């Protein structure tokens, strides 16, 4: 049962991911990616990560992609002109590269096995308990947590620096 749902969700994800890549119109891409992320969130749930699934929906599908939409609107870049995406050689090489890499990646992943699973504490879905996760964050992953806070701060300031209008300086260049 789980498995069927997972496979269905995965299929949807893949399809919409493909759409995202294929559609010329960026807005379409964003929207299809939203769908993809939703279905991905379903997969997360099935992998005992309800909390992550929630975040996925809120942060990704919600915040980030919406942000993308805003920017798209702001710059109102329409659909790519149908001119060829680049030099044929370039496309060819990309194709070759991707195919080879995909081959390696998938073959590796197919045969990749994990070391013997540990006995789960109670039933599987204990894994994703937010409280338990919180303990991790403020326990063993405290350092990471702090680091990420700096990261976000930097991102914040950075975004501010870049987005701020040219105010008190003569334009240059």
């Amino acid at each position, binding site marked *: 049962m789980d498995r069927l749902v*997972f496979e269905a969700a995965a299929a949807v994800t893949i399809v919409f991911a493909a759409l995202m890549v294929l559609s010329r119109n960026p807005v379409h891409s964003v929207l299809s990616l939203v769908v993809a992320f939703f279905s991905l969130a379903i997969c997360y749930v099935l992998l005992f990560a309800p*909390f992550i699934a929630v975040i996925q929906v809120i942060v990704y599908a919600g915040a980030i992609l919406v942000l993308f939409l805003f920017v798209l609107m702001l710059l109102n870049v329409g659909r790519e002109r149908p001119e060829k995406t680049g030099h044929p050689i370039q496309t060819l090489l990309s194709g070759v590269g991707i195919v080879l890499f995909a081959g390696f990646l998938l073959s590796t992943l197919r045969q990749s096995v994990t070391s013997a*699973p540990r006995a789960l504490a109670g039933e599987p879905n204990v894994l994703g308990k937010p409280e338990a996760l919180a303990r991790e964050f403020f326990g063993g992953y405290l350092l990471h947590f702090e680091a990420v806070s700096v990261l976000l701060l930097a991102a914040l300031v950075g975004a501010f620096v870049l987005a701020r209008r040219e105010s008190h300086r003569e334009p240059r260049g």
Partner: protein
Amino acid sequence: MIGTIPLAEVLIVSGALFCIGLCGALLRRNAIQIFLSIELMMNSANLALLGYGASLGTREGQVVVFFVIAIAAAEAAVGLAIFVALFRHTETIDVNRINLLKW
């Protein structure tokens, strides 16, 4: 096995997503779409993480995913800001047309 889902399957899906993202990153010209593709690649990593974590029966996978999402968010913020800043000069975010610096 995670419940009834075989790990390999999860990983294959993640791998597939990664490759799709790769295609987008390489073949699209619109910077935003490229970036979207990269986001997709990161998500594929997340999927794999959760798969591994679940099959290992450890929470670490989810913890990592959490951080990854945070990172991705931060990247998105900065990235979009950069796009905007550049757009002010070039009126485009088509990477084929953005080659003032070369050679």
